[in-house]
């Protein structure tokens, strides 16, 4: 990390959505650029910086939430027209703030992604893509899963405009007119697309993508097939990517990749000579970064990275060196500009204070009246509940526009709440009565420290046990209100969509036949499995592939009207599906004919799959147990030379072993739990109840050996 960037705040607007800040092109070289930012109050603010002060160029009136802000203009001219989408409407403004376009797309859903290129306008609602040219309908496409973002290869380089949709089912869909050209499979659900180098690279066909699980990649979209140039994993488990830009901030003549994530991380990556991606700068803001842009805003000749966060803070990471600042009690030394800024803010605050007091009084008075009602507008909550592949647990991120006071978590299924290091809130578990009438399995409060606007939690679920997790969020805002958010813990909660599965594994099959519609069977699958689009697919029958993130076992679900086939190498998965599906069908009074085909080999196959994990964990816990004793011996004897090499290597690796052990708490217990489930489920299909033999199984697990375990499974 050889670049030093200093953080400067510019201004605060309302809550912002993803990709709603753009830098207007500079007039002349290295001059200050203007910033256009749109927020969820519907206000577009365009401002420039003059002597450290934000000088507004224009501000629009409040309206509907703005979901995207893009720049456009006639080809060959500076791209300085501002386009915003809100609801199902697209509006255009000149750089002076004059509205020149208002276009109602007539979509049933709200626009959530947009791309503008010359006279072409591409908009996406949840599942629908529409292309307009000069506001006339051109092409239409219905996507199989939610569309998160859209980008278009520049027409001047590839000959025609090629729209690319980033879809939630881990596919980038490349379109040709109204038809799908091909899909690009990416490792995570893509959340953002951006042209490489802002123009798609030399051939104009390279795009950068970022995923909700924090991966980054570059794909070359050729005529016939995609070429993946590179992919970067998210090893440090940082947040999901919300925005990308390319800009030469390092000043080496090559454009660097700027990345903003939903955990507040801002990163700068550079490609080195061997085309390897290297992290050159990292800065952590306290809330999600919704937009990132490279340019020059604060001071002429100093490049910077401009970021906008969820709560609307527009700030820069500038190459301008920061002077030493004066300490408290020495305000005289503050620069004139800051002083006037502070004074202005203070007087503004005072006026507001008076207004708020009046408001408060009125509110108090209304409580005397018997007819008045008290209603407080909903505050916006930005939440994300995702399955982390690495440790097979869910992460819940909550973000509110103002500081959170406390959070109440309630669950009606048994789940484990894990500690997250970043989190400074004080957690307290309350006693709960899992029995009726209240049926709570988890009641926990988080009391937040001052100025916490973002909270991250980890939750571990058990497959087969399903229900709802509720979060009651109370911000520090008068009059005090709280909002409840619900998250479904699905029966097969640890499964994740994949693109394909291995066909050579021994599979168990579950077959459903009955008088049910396609929509009904689809709703059951949605109920059972995560990452399935809620909308019923357009086709006659559909196939989804899943992978168990914890064990690596797989599931294939194929279903159509009146028939469903589920194949998995894990018998427990089939057992859970059978239980849940028959329950759901009974609820709707549908007569289901369930048949299953159990493959005896699948059980030992699953055990073999668990084997390396289990063996590794057992060895790890054994080694960790030894560390303290060995260290003591080392201190006692003065050195470790007398130990056998195995023990010496444990000592040498102790830090890494401990780290690893700490990272995956209760891993062994979870594996034991799954083997026990496997055991019970295997015999459940044979109509035997083997719960009495579980203790014998646990005994075998304590003295683990693969063969004796397989034997036990076969004999019992």
């Amino acid at each position: 990390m050889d670049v030093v960037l200093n953080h400067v705040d510019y201004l605060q607007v309302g809550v912002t959505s993803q990709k709603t800040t753009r830098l207007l092109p500079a007039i002349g070289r290295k001059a200050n650029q203007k910033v256009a930012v749109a927020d969820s109050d519907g206000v577009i603010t365009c401002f420039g910086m003059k002597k450290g002060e934000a000088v507004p160029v224009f501000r629009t009136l409040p309206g509907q939430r703005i979901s995207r802000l893009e720049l456009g203009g006639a080809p060959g001219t500076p791209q300085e027209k501002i386009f915003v989408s809100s609801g199902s409407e697209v509006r255009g403004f000149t750089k002076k703030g004059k509205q020149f376009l208002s276009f109602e797309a007539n979509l049933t859903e709200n626009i959530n992604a947009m791309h503008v290129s010359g006279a072409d306008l591409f908009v996406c609602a949840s599942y629908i893509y529409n292309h307009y040219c000069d506001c006339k309908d051109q092409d239409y496409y219905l996507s199989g899963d939610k569309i998160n973002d859209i980008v278009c290869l520049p027409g001047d380089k590839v000959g025609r405009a090629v729209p690319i949709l980033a879809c939630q089912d881990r596919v980038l869909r490349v379109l040709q007119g109204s038809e799908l050209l091909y899909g690009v499979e990416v490792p995570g659900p893509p959340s953002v697309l951006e042209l490489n180098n802002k123009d798609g690279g030399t051939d104009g066909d390279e795009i950068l993508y970022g995923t909700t699980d924090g991966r980054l990649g570059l794909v070359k979209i050729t005529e016939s097939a995609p070429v993946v140039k590179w992919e970067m994993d998210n090893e440090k488990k940082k947040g999901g990517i919300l925005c990308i830009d390319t800009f030469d901030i390092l000043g080496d003549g090559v454009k660097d990749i700027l990345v903003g994530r939903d955990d507040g991380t801002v990163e700068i990556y550079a490609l080195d000579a061997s085309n390897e991606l290297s992290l050159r700068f990292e800065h952590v803001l306290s809330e999600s970064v919704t937009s990132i842009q490279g340019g020059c805003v604060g001071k002429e000749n100093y490049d910077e990275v401009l970021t906008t966060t969820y709560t609307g803070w527009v700030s820069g990471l500038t190459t301008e060196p920061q002077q030493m600042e004066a300490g408290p009690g020495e305000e005289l030394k503050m620069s004139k500009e800051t002083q006037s800024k502070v004074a202005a803010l203070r007087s503004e605050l005072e006026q507001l204070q008076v207004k708020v007091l009046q408001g408060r009084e009125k509110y108090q008075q209304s409580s005397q009246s018997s007819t008045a009602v008290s209603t407080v507008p909903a505050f916006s909550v930005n939440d994300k509940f995702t399955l982390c592949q690495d440790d097979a647990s869910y992460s819940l991120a909550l973000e509110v526009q103002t500081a959170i006071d406390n959070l109440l978590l309630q669950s009606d299924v048994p789940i484990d709440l894990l500690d997250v290091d970043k989190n400074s809130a004080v957690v307290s578990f309350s006693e709960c009565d899992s029995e009726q009438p209240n049926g709570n399995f988890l009641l926990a409060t988080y009391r937040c420290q001052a100025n916490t606007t973002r909270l991250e939690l980890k939750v571990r679920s058990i497959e087969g046990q399903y229900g709802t997790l509720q979060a009651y969020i109370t911000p520090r805002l008068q009059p005090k209100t709280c909002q409840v958010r619900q998250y479904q813990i699905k029966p097969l909660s640890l499964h994740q969509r994949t693109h394909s599965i291995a066909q050579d594994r021994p599979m168990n099959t579950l077959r459903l036949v009955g008088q049910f519609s396609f929509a009904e069977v689809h709703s059951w699958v949605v109920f059972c499995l995560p990452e399935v689009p809620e909308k019923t697919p357009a086709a006659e029958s559909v196939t989804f592939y899943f992978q168990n993130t914890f064990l690596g076992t797989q599931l294939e679900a194929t279903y159509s009207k009146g028939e469903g086939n589920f194949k998995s190498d894990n018998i427990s998965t089939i057992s859970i599906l059978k239980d849940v599906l028959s329950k759901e069908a009974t609820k709707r009074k549908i007569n289901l004919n369930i048949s299953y085909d159990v493959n005896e080999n699948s059980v030992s196959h699953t055990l073999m799959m668990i084997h390396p994990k289990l063996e590794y964990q057992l060895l790890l816990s054994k080694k960790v147990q030894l560390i303290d004793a060995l260290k003591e011996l080392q201190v006692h004897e003065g050195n470790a030379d007398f130990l056998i090499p195995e023990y010496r290597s444990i000592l040498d690796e102790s830090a890494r072993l401990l780290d690893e052990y700490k990272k995956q708490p209760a891993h062994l217990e979870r594996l034991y739990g799954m083997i026990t489930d496997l055991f019970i489920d295997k015999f459940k299909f044979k109509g035997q109840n083997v719960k009495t033999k579980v203790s014998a199984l646990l005994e075998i697990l304590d003295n683990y050996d693969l063969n004796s375990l397989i034997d036990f499974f076969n004999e019992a």
Partner: protein
Amino acid sequence: MLVPIFTLKLNHKINPRMVTVGKFDGVHPCLTAATQAGKVFIHNPHTRAQRNVAHRLSQSAQDSDITLLNINQAVSCLTAGTLGPNTTGDTLLVGSQTSLLAYDVHDNADIFYREVTDGANAIVLGKLGDIQYPLAIIGGNCALQGFDYEGNDQFWTVTGDNVRSLVLCDFTGDGKNELLVGSEDFDIRVFKEDELVTEMAENETVTSLCHMHGSRFGYALANGTVGVYDRTARYWRIKSKNHAMSIHAFDLNADGVVELITGWSNGKIDARSDRTGEVIFKDNFSSSIAGVVEGDYRMDGQIQLICTSVEGEVRGYLPASKEMKGNLMDSSVEQDLIRELSQRKQNLLLELRNYEENAKASPGVSEVDSQMGVIPANTQLQTALSVRAATESQRAHIELSISTPNETIIRAVLIFAEGIFEGESHVVHPSAQNLSGCIRVPIIPPKDIPVDLHIKAFVGGRTSAQFHVFEITRQLPRFSMYDLNVDPTATRPTGRVTFSINDRPQRVVMWLNQNFLLPEGMDSPDVTFTCLRAGGLLTISMQSSGEITFNTDDIDLAGDLVQSLASFLAIDDLQAEADFPAYFQELRVTLTEVDEFHSVHQKLTAAMADHSNHIRNMLVQAEDARLMGDIVNMKRRYIELYDLNRDLINEYKIRSNNHNALLVCLKSVNQAIQRAGRLRVGKPKNQVISACRDAIKNNNINALFKIMKAGTASS
């Protein structure tokens, strides 16, 4: 940004809270800390390669700057400082669960070694009150003991529970040091020599105490709270999800006032202003902090703050220079100020928007949108506290009932309170089918302490996604688990405590009304309660002469009542007569048990000495046989030796069981003295404690009970 001026990796683990700096030769400061395997290491980077190895000291093979001191017992506390009047260097004091060792590192010699039956959980060295020489004061199981430089027991007193932290500071401002004691019963007690001056109730085990300046001191609790007291008034406190491992006072920003430096279990270290608790500096270690100390470690005349982690990482920080102007953090003040102001502005704007939107909402229309959680503006929550006796399905409890006056429902209730729930909060969340406008929360306070209940109730409609939060604070009086309904057939308590006051009965009635949870006010001081927690009755009666009698079998309760009443009536000294036949009988049994355990202990020790002689003989014989090539005999000897070893291990187990049982008994004896003391206030209290001590020293059990009953040694 303040950066460390030196960092060391010591390659030795450091036990938490067992770190000190001592100038053992009078000149060079040495970092000294307890490590694994009953060892203490001394890091001395100043005088290399001129140390001799003998007695307890041995050179570490890994690091030439480190010398190891073998204690052969798990160290539980250590400190260093001037103990003797004519010593040049500091004395190292190491406490374990059974002993205290004073050691002269420079001369490599023991100064004294004392068996301490109550153990040493915490240690402090310094002058206490008017006692001439500095004392090494150790806190163990309910007892405090001070030793002078000759190892003479100069100071002894008892306290309410196991001691966890000690500090000496001039609490009363009389120029002499008082002893502050933090213990496992959540109290910080202040002793002026052996007189208890005052106690402050906290809500968790007090794990650390440190003197700031004047009468101000910092404290840390086991639940992650740290804070600062000035005398009995708490200045500030903060709570973290991590645990404070060590606290220390140090002037890091060089403004002339010390800050509270806290080392946390997650490896964080922060400096907080003593006035406000505002963080002025923070840094991170990769593992938990073990201890924070100070010393001139570079020998350049400047004192550094020295922080150590459990993995043996050491960092030293110099106080900030003038140029930094008190700004130790990596951020600019201007930026922060503007950000804070903007944040406030944003908050006010949001609040204003709330009021505006609220004013816009007209009654009829908004009811359609029940998602928003619209409630009538005149909704007010009613709360009531009442005592509920045990039923078949539920234990005795205090019922907090919260209800709305209209058709709105209470979605959930959060109660934040200290010391009465497992965590810091209790939640009631009815399932969707059982929603109503009234929620009853059973509360069972485990101790007789006054508690503030901070209630947050989520009020709205049945299908709301947003709720109004009502925040109410209710106080639970100290003696709330006492019910006025008395079973007439219940047996009268035999225990009682009687004392006289010079106050009107009305004042006692006032005390009753304030400290008990009574459905309606009382007008007479004569009253009988049922104790819901322990069962049994409590009778309070007052004669016209001002003589008050508490009848109860629970000596702790009697003590609490006396202390509470005395502080309410502002009585400084109170003598009382007491009799608790059941409890005294129990104590008598315990005392005979103590004697038995002692004699068993002696027997076992003798047996062990015997065995060790055997071992020596057998080993010689076995080795002889081996050298002679007599394998058969050698084998036999070694088998015998193996058997003997097994016997020894068994005996050891018996010994340690015996020892643990003895400790439990001794603790209860110490507690008995403490309880007898708590029946009195002020001087009589101290007299009872010291007289009891004398009686135990002289093994005069009858005198002990006489003192406990009458309150004085004579008569």
